[in-house]
Structure formats: structure tokens, C-alpha cells
């Protein structure tokens, strides 16, 4: 994998920030976009745009084709068994909300339990809490280990006859921990419990095969895998999706509407009310094709090398404490420093052109479990280099000079 060649595909990496070459270490928040994604979307808007479905003219039919091809592209990318198991949403957040409100409302009742872990992103906590206002079910929270790991044993202990769903992150956005999801799914299925995976952080870092995982639901966002914002995916096993009531009502999701009664189309249309983000699907398709052309396996190997290098290089700087050192991790380096608040670290790095994130990373319970208000977080994408890690290390030494 030729990273220098890949970097040329990302126009933004040529720009400067605060007069310095941009060192972008915030891909876990959102990845930058390669030219094929940008061009596919402009080309679509310039030459191919029309609303999809029911248009009795060529442009609309070709736009519909692109939209449908996008679904097939996603299906292949995550190896789903059927095209109609792919629902387009705004992003992972909406996908999680969809399952909570549709599946949750149809399947949960008082006394039931949904099992989460303590390192979940707020997007896999709050939708369940909103549903709790309507249905008095309980959330069981699997504790986190000191190194940011989640152990299968602890998940097993949380499972009981009351458990109706396990909904956990595939990869932690705060600490980079890769959860033992395959084992979790196997154990849950042995007990007849379905599992949803929040794949927002995993999707860009490793090959995801929903059939091999045997996940019941899998969600991710387009913008974290080099595609546009505003488009995301809910994968659901066909039998589940077919059994679920609509999430939103509107056009494009009905069979027949009268004021007395309305019947709904089968999935995926049932869950895609209204005009969707068509250009988003076009961009996502281009993004998935782009990473496929490089090879997810190559990307995973490259990012693992970067992470190992960063652990060594950053972890040994005096005053730096890495937060999240689980044995299996992906592309995320969370840390705190003596005498320097994460926001001050961020500002010093910014003045050197280095973009990181600081704060609780929308995972307050995870931060609390570590006794922290927040961390500084550097995260890597396929375009990052060992030199980027060196720049970060130099920047952190400058932080230390100022604050220590």
C-alpha cells in the first residue's frame, strides 16, 4: 500500500492549517474525502440528478439505478445475504434510533433487559433511554476494565432470561478497543438473544462480514469510511426487518394509503420514508469502491502499524498516559497529560497544524469509568503516515514544555 500515492487522492491534505502542513489525526470523528467521492457526487449533481422512483424519464430512471446499485455495493461490502437487508439512513445514529424505536417498541416490555457496555457512544445509550420513557424495560451495563477492554465473561454475566437484545460497539470510539463481538454474538445466540453491533468505528478499519459475524443488526455511517455525511446504513437480517413496524411515515414507504388504513411496503422501502440522500448514496458507493480498490486488509495492516508505532512513540513521552490499552485495538490513541488539560493540548497542537479531538468523545460513561472528564484523542486513517505520528510526538513535547 503506497500511502504517499493515496495521500494525493485527498485534496484537503494539500492545504495548510495555521500556516503549517495539515496533519489530520481526527478520522475517528470524520474521515477526509478522496477525489473519487467528491467527483462522483459533483458528477451526479451536474449530470445525473433527479428524484428516484416513479420518474417516467431517463434521468430519474438512471438516478434510481445508481441508488439501487449503491444498495448492492453496500450489501457486497459487508457481505449481507440479501440486498433488501440494507436500509439507508442519515448515519449510524439514525440506524440505532430506528432499531430502538421500531424493533424496541415491538419487542420490549416491562421487565425486559437490553444489554449495553459502559464504553458505548451516546448514540447507543440515549435512544434506549428515550424508549424507556414509553416502555419500562431495563438497561444492563457491562463494566469496562481498567485498560478499556470489555471481557466476554462480563458480557455473559449480564445475560439472563430477561435479556431481549445485546447492543454493543464493535470498536470503541473513545479508546479504540475492539470488542470480542464474534464470541458475544455466539454466546447471545446460544441463549436465543439477538445482537446489534454499532460499527461506526469498525467499518473503516477492518473487513466487516455480517454473515460471518452472524450479527442481527449492524450499523455504520458513510462519513467515517471516506464517504459523505448524512448517509448511513442499517443492516438487519431479513426476518427481523420484515417483522418490524415502520420507523417514519411518508412517501415511498407505502403500499396503499386511505384515511381509514394504510399498508406498508416491505423492507427496505418500509424504512426509507421520503426522498432519501441520493447523492449521499452515490458518494458512499464511490467511497466503498475506493477502499475496496485499496483493500480493507491492507488498510487494517497499515493502521495497525501506525497504532503500534504511536503507542510506543507517544506512550513513552514523559507525562503522557495512554487511556485504553486493551490487547485488541483499532486506530485510536486516547491519552491524557500531566498538567495539561485535553483542550489545551488540542490548542497547542492546532498551532502546529495538527488536528486532534479533545473531550469526552460522546462517551461520558466510558470517561467516568476511567475517572476522567475527557481525553485527547488522535485517530488514524489510511492516509496517515509515520511522519504524522512524529509530528504529534513533537507537538506533545511542546505541550510539555509549556505546561510542565
Amino acid at each position, binding site marked *: 500500500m503506497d500511502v504517499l500515492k493515496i495521500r494525493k487522492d485527498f485534496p484537503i491534505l494539500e492545504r495548510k492549517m*495555521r*500556516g*503549517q502542513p495539515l496533519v489530520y489525526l481526527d478520522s475517528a470523528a470524520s474521515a477526509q474525502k478522496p477525489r473519487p467521492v467528491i467527483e462522483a457526487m459533483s458528477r451526479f449533481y451536474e449530470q445525473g440528478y433527479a428524484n428516484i422512483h416513479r420518474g417516467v424519464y431517463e434521468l430519474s430512471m438512471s438516478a434510481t439505478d445508481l441508488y439501487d446499485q449503491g444498495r448492492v455495493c453496500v450489501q457486497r461490502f459487508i457481505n449481507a445475504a440479501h440486498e433488501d437487508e440494507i436500509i439507508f439512513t442519515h448515519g449510524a445514529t439514525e440506524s440505532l434510533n430506528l432499531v430502538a424505536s421500531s424493533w424496541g417498541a415491538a419487542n420490549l416490555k416491562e421487565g425486559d433487559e437490553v444489554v449495553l457496555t459502559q464504553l458505548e457512544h451516546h448514540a447507543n445509550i440515549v435512544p434506549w433511554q428515550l424508549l424507556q420513557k414509553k416502555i419500562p424495560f431495563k438497561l444492563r451495563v457491562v463494566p469496562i476494565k481498567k485498560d478499556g477492554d470489555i471481557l466476554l465473561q462480563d458480557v455473559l454475566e449480564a445475560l439472563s432470561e430477561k435479556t431481549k437484545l445485546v447492543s454493543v460497539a464493535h470498536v470503541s470510539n473513545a479508546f479504540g478497543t475492539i470488542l470480542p463481538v464474534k464470541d458475544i454474538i455466539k454466546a447471545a445466540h446460544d441463549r436465543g438473544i439477538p445482537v446489534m453491533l454499532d460499527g461506526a468505528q469498525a467499518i473503516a478499519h477492518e473487513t466487516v462480514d455480517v454473515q460471518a459475524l452472524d450479527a442481527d443488526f449492524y450499523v455504520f455511517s458513510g462519513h467515517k469510511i471516506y464517504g459523505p455525511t448524512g448517509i448511513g446504513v442499517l443492516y438487519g437480517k431479513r426476518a427481523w426487518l420484515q417483522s418490524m413496524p415502520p420507523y417514519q411515515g411518508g412517501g415511498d414507504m407505502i403500499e396503499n394509503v386511505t384515511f381509514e388504513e394504510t399498508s406498508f411496503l416491505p423492507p427496505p422501502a418500509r424504512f426509507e420514508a421520503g426522498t432519501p440522500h441520493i447523492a449521499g448514496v452515490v458518494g458512499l458507493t464511490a467511497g466503498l469502491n475506493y477502499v475496496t480498490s485499496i483493500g480493507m486488509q491492507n488498510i487494517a495492516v497499515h493502521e495497525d502499524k501506525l497504532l503500534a508505532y504511536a503507542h510506543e512513540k507517544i506512550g513513552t513521552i514523559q507525562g503522557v498516559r495512554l487511556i485504553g490499552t486493551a490487547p485488541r485495538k483499532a486506530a485510536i490513541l486516547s491519552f491524557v497529560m500531566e*498538567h*495539561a*488539560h*485535553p*483542550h*489545551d493540548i488540542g*490548542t*497547542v497542537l*492546532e*498551532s*502546529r497544524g495538527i488536528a486532534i479531538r*479533545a*473531550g*469526552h468523545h460522546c462517551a461520558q460513561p466510558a470517561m467516568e469509568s476511567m475517572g476522567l*472528564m*475527557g481525553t485527547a484523542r488522535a485517530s488514524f486513517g489510511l492516509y496517515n503516515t509515520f511522519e504524522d505520528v512524529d509530528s504529534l510526538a513533537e507537538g506533545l513535547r511542546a505541550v510539555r514544555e*509549556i*505546561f510542565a
Partner: protein
Amino acid sequence: MSLNEQDLLDLYQDLILDHSRYPHNFYEMEKAQCQAVGHNPLCGDRLVLYVTADEQGRIKEASFQGQGCAISMASASMMTDLLKGKTAQEAEKLAAHFEQLCKNFKPDPQFEAMMNPEDNARLDALAGVKNYPARVKCAMLSWRTLQAALNPAQNQTVQTENT
């Protein structure tokens, strides 16, 4: 030295770093006349501000407790120093003046002329955040909390993240 480095040194100058490391007036005031909470939920900075005035209505004691970045801690520390001896009205004017400085608007020269030079220097140091717009909220948190404390009718928890 590049412009960047100069901006950074202006922001994290010794005066600011000293106040953030060893904040002045950092204690809970048990019988405070007014108090309010400043909390920026996105970044997690949180402080409680306490103010007590004498019979003439001049602030005789101002203190705070909480946690946050160097900028928000230094700002609260310097602000509580500056408040002593000021009336509520003067304190409010000072807060408005400081906001102008942080947002890089031209401050009122008349007001500046009325202030003592040392106070001006302190505020100028804090106003280094004007080169870092993402951090203005950190510098403003204690001052916005002060406005809430002085106006008890208002909501007693304030934030500066969506302003």
C-alpha cells in the same frame, strides 16, 4: 518566530499559566450571597462561582471551585481577583468589556481609560484567546457565570458553548 508561535505564547503566557496552576480564590464560600454554576457540557468544564458584597454593595469576596482547562481556570482566578471592590454594575460592565476583547471587537476606550493599568494588562493577557475562536468559550465561562450569579432571576446554570 512564526506568527503562530507568538499567538500561542501570548495565550499561554506565564501570567495565565500561573493562575491556572495555582488559582486564586479557589474555595467554596459557605455563606455566599450569590452563586451560580457554569458548565460547558461538550468540553466538561464546570465551576461554581460565589460572590458576597459588603453593606455598600461592593464585592468583598469572590471565589470559585471547579475543574477545567488552563484558560477557564485562569480566567476564573483572575476574574475573582478583579471583582473585589466593584459594585454589581461595575462588575457587569467589566464582563461586557471582557467579552468585547475576547471576540476581538474594539473595546470602549473610555472604559479602558477608567480601569487601572494592571487590570487592563490582566484582561489583555486573557484576551489572547481571540486568536483561538474555539477557546473563547473557555475564557468566557466564569464571566457568564458571574452575570448569572448577579442576576438571580436568571437560570443559575449557564454555558458558553452555543453563544
